[in-house]
């Protein structure tokens, strides 16, 4: 018998195509498997993934940092299928299953930003390089957010920003690897403008006291822009040193300046001090130009409102979220957080909790932890049930667009936590702006 050892060209093509197809078959059943390659802190076959929570544990914003950390711990608990699930039950569309992320248990490490850019960057670096953090999140300052975001872009690790309100975070300093759920000064101005018109009229003269750093300038610019569009005049915009403590020498010129509105572009301790002292100088009860004198604090926080005590009564401002909202997402989160800690969450806690869930969900959607694919899953992602109504992570600048709350210090609080009254939920359409308005470049998907 003679064996036929030669193959026809047709047979060869058939065989090789079959082998290639069989070899590639699993890739078709594995989402984005083509993109799967090695990346920083790839968990591989490990049973867990580590997230890095970079919050101010010392310094002026330590209380906000503590609340952020509480929210992160709660989010980890819910992602791992423990507790009542919180907003995981209301978040839609959701790919989260309550079995960790992509079947891996979520663990975490923490860092202390100290509300200092260099310290925040160092702690993020430590969490990435030594602790194996796959994603960094947190912070309570725009300076910190911008610095950590830049580091994360270099390192090829995602950064889900915590509380950062300056336009720059998703404006001129935006990065492909950085995402912000919190609103910004532009959105505060757009939301506040119409409410100020309704409550105070078009014929007003404003006097700005502004914290002399990046966020303060950004906030002053937005409020001036929107208030002057209403017809308001700006009498003066005075810069005050950060952490001035005693603002009396800046407040006394307001008394006889001819202004009838004082805008305090201050946050944190500066806000507490300047507002307290403005009220002590009688500005809240003063009459000017035949009208009631008004004080506006563009960015309000419940934790800061506690520091200002009675002085916040009647004062207008904006906030990203408030625990008194009654939508099902907010109710689920407040119930879960309240049961765990005995008090309602702050807006900082809310944004951090949401960011953690959004990251986890994006990994599930992408079917991988590979950052470029997770980024693509987040870009343009539309969701609801997280406390701010229908929300979108805009692909062009990584800024979340959602309803913004205009609030007022509560004159008659019904409970010890009821410090801010929601005056209006300003719809998302009113606070949206063109993606290229604030400048900046996102940069590449792949780590350079």
């Amino acid at each position, binding site marked *: 018998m003679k064996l036929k050892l030669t193959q026809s060209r047709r047979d060869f093509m058939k065989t090789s195509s079959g082998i290639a197809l069989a070899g590639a078959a699993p890739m078709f059943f594995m989402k984005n498997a083509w993109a799967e390659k090695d990346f920083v802190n790839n968990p591989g076959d490990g049973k867990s993934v580590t997230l890095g929570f970079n919050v101010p544990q*010392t310094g002026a914003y*330590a*209380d906000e940092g503590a609340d952020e950390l509480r929210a992160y711990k709660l989010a980890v608990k819910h992602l791992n299928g423990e507790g009542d699930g919180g907003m995981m039950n209301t978040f839609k569309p959701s790919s989260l299953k309550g079995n960790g992320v992509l079947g891996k248990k979520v663990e975490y490490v923490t860092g202390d930003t100290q509300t200092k850019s260099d310290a925040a960057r160092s702690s993020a670096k430590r969490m990435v390089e030594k602790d194996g953090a796959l994603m960094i999140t947190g912070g309570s300052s725009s300076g910190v957010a911008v610095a950590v975001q830049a580091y994360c872009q270099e390192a090829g690790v995602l950064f889900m920003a915590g509380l950062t309100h300056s336009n720059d975070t998703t404006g001129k300093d935006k990065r492909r690897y950085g995402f912000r759920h919190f609103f910004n000064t532009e959105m505060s101005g757009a939301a506040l403008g119409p409410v100020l018109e309704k409550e105070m009229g078009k014929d007003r003269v404003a006097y700005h006291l502004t914290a002399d750093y990046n966020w303060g300038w950004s906030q002053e610019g937005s409020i001036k822009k929107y208030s002057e569009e209403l017809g308001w005049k700006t009498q003066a915009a005075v810069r005050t040193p950060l952490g001035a403590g005693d603002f009396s*020498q800046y407040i006394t010129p307001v008394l006889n300046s001819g202004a009838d509105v004082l805008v305090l572009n201050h946050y944190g*301790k500066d806000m507490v001090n300047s507002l307290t002292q403005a009220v*002590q100088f009688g500005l809240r009860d003063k009459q000017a130009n035949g009208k009631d004198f008004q004080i506006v604090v563009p960015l309000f926080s419940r934790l800061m409102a506690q520091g200002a005590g009675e002085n916040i009564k009647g004062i207008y401002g904006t906030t990203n979220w408030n625990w008194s909202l009654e939508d099902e997402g907010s109710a689920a989160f407040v119930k879960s957080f309240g049961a765990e800690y005995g008090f309602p969450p702050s807006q900082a806690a809310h944004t951090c909790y949401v960011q953690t869930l959004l990251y986890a969900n994006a990994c599930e959607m992408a079917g991988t932890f590979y950052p470029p694919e997770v980024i693509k899953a987040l870009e343009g992602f539309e969701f609801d049930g997280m406390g701010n109504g229908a929300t979108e992570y805009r692909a062009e600048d990584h800024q979340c667009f959602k309803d913004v709350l205009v609030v007022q210090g509560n004159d008659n609080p019904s*409970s010890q936590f009821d410090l801010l009254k929601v005056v209006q939920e300003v719809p998302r359409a009113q606070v949206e702006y063109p993606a290229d308005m604030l400048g900046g470049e996102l940069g590449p998907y792949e780590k350079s």
Partner: protein
Amino acid sequence: MDALLLQLLNGLDKGGAYALIALGLTLVFGTLGVVNFGHGALFMLGAFCAVVMQKILTLSEKVKDESVTFFDAYKEVPYLETWFGETGTMIIDWSVPISLFLVIPFMMLVGWALERGLIKHFYKRTHAEQILVTFGLAIVLQEIIKANFGANPIPTPAPDIVAGSANVGSWFGMGDNLVYPWWRLIYFIFSMIVIFIAFAFLKFTTFGMVVRAGMQDRDTVSMLGINIERRFTIVFGLAAVIAGLAGAMYAPTLPPDYHMGMDFLVLSFIVVVVGGMGSLPGAVLAGFLLGILQSFASMNEVKSILPGIDQIIIYLIAVVVLLVRPRGLMGRKGVMED
């Protein structure tokens, strides 16, 4: 004119705080020869005495807060209000002035403990070492306060009756535009009283005479058989009490937080240097002078000519004074010149 008078009042009020802190610093430096960078923390501790007194007076029973429906929340109803009704509310309202009765013994005790437990071991060490150890002490005190009270400012309001503003203009027939907060006026008067008592104590008592003699020549006083060390311990306690009183009364103006002492410390050192190291009248004079100049430099009219002058005026004055009078305005010969 109104603007000038308002800034003058601001300066007197601010200067009152500077002068009180600088007075204690100078006392300690003049007697013990110690550069105490922990003095700002003593000011902060005084403010927290007001916070503690407020917490004591508002000790409360927890009552279920029915207005919170999402979870089990509890509100606090002060026992004083439950037991004494409106009288209880009034006592709580006066917590800051009442806290002065806590400040005096507590700060004296703190001063004594710090001097005996730490400072006395550094009398013969260099000023650099003294600065390091007292600065470390300040950080420890800050962190203790933060661990117990958090990092956020704590509202500590003045009594309702003095919470508003006084129509200062009408007192002098200048119209209704010149208003100034009652509590700041009270603070200025209070600082003047404390300064007067401290000077009277040092001037008219035997103890004060010995301390003043010790400031001039410690060795000679010791050779006369006087236990100058024991008196210096009391002086440290006295300086701590003055800083504490200044802090407690400042609490309604600046809601206390753990870092407030550091904010005042650097300025107060400049006050001491400008006034003259070791000179008590110099410290008081420089305190008010720098407070007033800082306020005037913050006027928009001044800043439009010299932008940023409000933030450097104190340092600028210090440079000029040290160039013209190297020992400060009222400095004594030989102090820190070895």
